[in-house]
């Protein structure tokens, strides 16, 4: 299972790429493999305020709807509109084209409270 070294991770299987004051967020390869066949993504609204660990988006597979949580506190500044036409990008490229939203973090140091790649690898066994 792919777990890139340069990202941060949550226990609820989101990944975070720190881009200065912003955090780009998606779901991990492990999460997409568990869900399989993502058929719909309910994106957050640009400008939405996100609490750390607060529900912010929904990813739906054929079988079920799964909540996506904001890894850190911040404001949504960008969402991946490409997922509206092609939600399967989450399956084919979870760490790249399948990103879901970008948060402007309230305090960028918050990412340090997340897991690193080694910690996440351990968590998913």
């Amino acid at each position, binding site marked *: 299972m792919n777990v890139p070294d340069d990202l941060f991770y949550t226990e609820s299987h989101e990944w975070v790429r720190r881009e200065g004051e912003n955090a780009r967020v998606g779901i991990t390869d492990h999460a997409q493999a568990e869900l*399989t*066949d993502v*058929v*719909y993504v309910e994106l957050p609204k640009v400008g939405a305020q996100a609490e750390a660990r607060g529900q912010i988006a929904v990813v739906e597979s*054929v*079988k*079920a*709807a799964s909540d996506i949580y904001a890894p850190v506190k911040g404001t949504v500044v960008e969402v991946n509109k490409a997922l*509206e036409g092609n939600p399967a990008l989450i399956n084919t490229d979870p760490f790249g084209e399948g990103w879901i939203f970008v948060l402007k973090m309230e305090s960028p140091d918050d990412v340090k409270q997340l897991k690193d790649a080694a910690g996440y690898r351990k968590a998913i066994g």
Partner: protein
Amino acid sequence: MTPMSDAAPKKTPLYDEHVRLGAKMIPFGDWIMPVQYSGIMDEHQAVRNNVGVFDISHMGQLVATGPATAGWLNEMLTNNIDKLEVGAGQYTFLLNERGGIIDDLIVYRTAPEEFLLVVNASGTEGDFAWLKKHIAEGVDLQNRSADCAGLAIQGPRVVELFHSFLGSDIELPERNQIKTFDHDGSKLTIGRTGYTGEDGIEVFFPAEDAPKIWNEILAKGEPLDIRPCGLGARDTLRLEMCYPLNGSDLSPDHNPIEAGLGFFVDLKKPKFIGREVLVQAKENGTANRLVAFRMQSKGPPPRPHYGVWLAGQQIGEATSGTLSPSLNQGIGMAYLPTPHARAGTEIEIEIRGQKFPAVIEKKPLYKKS
């Protein structure tokens, strides 16, 4: 679905095979069952285009024998047993006194005075207890579920697969018929039926032979692009055909007339449990009808219990819902007040507080082109 019990979940004789193949296992009633292997989409398309195999060992097998059995079953079940020659089967219902559905099942006449009832996993214990409670003299009823494993093998290439499996000279039973075959020391009971809308069979055999037969089917099916399939694809396939799922679309609070399944009820029979209620329902109509609907936008797929709205009022809730892999649209079923339960009626489905347009359509939602 029945509530989960605290007891350890029951495993079918193929549990280890599923785990070995990397299936995702989920609780299903009292059972732990594979929901998917390669993915619901892939498995669904395999059944529509080639062939797929499902473990249905969790389903129940009840065997009724004796000189009074046909007459007794005619009083227990809605369809007409007298129409069954030896080797024939029919879809039928077990009802309570209120006409509500205890279970939907297939009954086969396997000998002049012997019948096989294939019932839902979640219904097995309850059906058996109900039938035992109403047993008649001259009928012996046995629950053979624990000794029996089963596979549903579904898809347009099922005949090819069975010629490769059992020999090119064998003839599978005709639709809704049942036959037995000997294969390598195992007795196979094969019914030509299924829950997918494709050509297919359900095959039952002794539980101890299950891993061997499962692996042989997968090996023989490899050139045909066979896929092991889980409950996920089973649900999308059956819902495209609008085949009801007991516990979701069928329940003791609904009768077969409301569910639009009156075809499997013979009201000319003088007596069966629930008959009076069904006669009334047929004569006076029912307050609600089970309809099929299709989403009109590329929104989120509907799910069970989502609200159904018409003209600003909630008029019901979905009993089933999913994304249809064949139609690439959300589909579902719901009980709606009869005046609104007409094909073409525009409704809305409430999903996380937002309403999305849908249209009631004739069943089935998927028609093979």
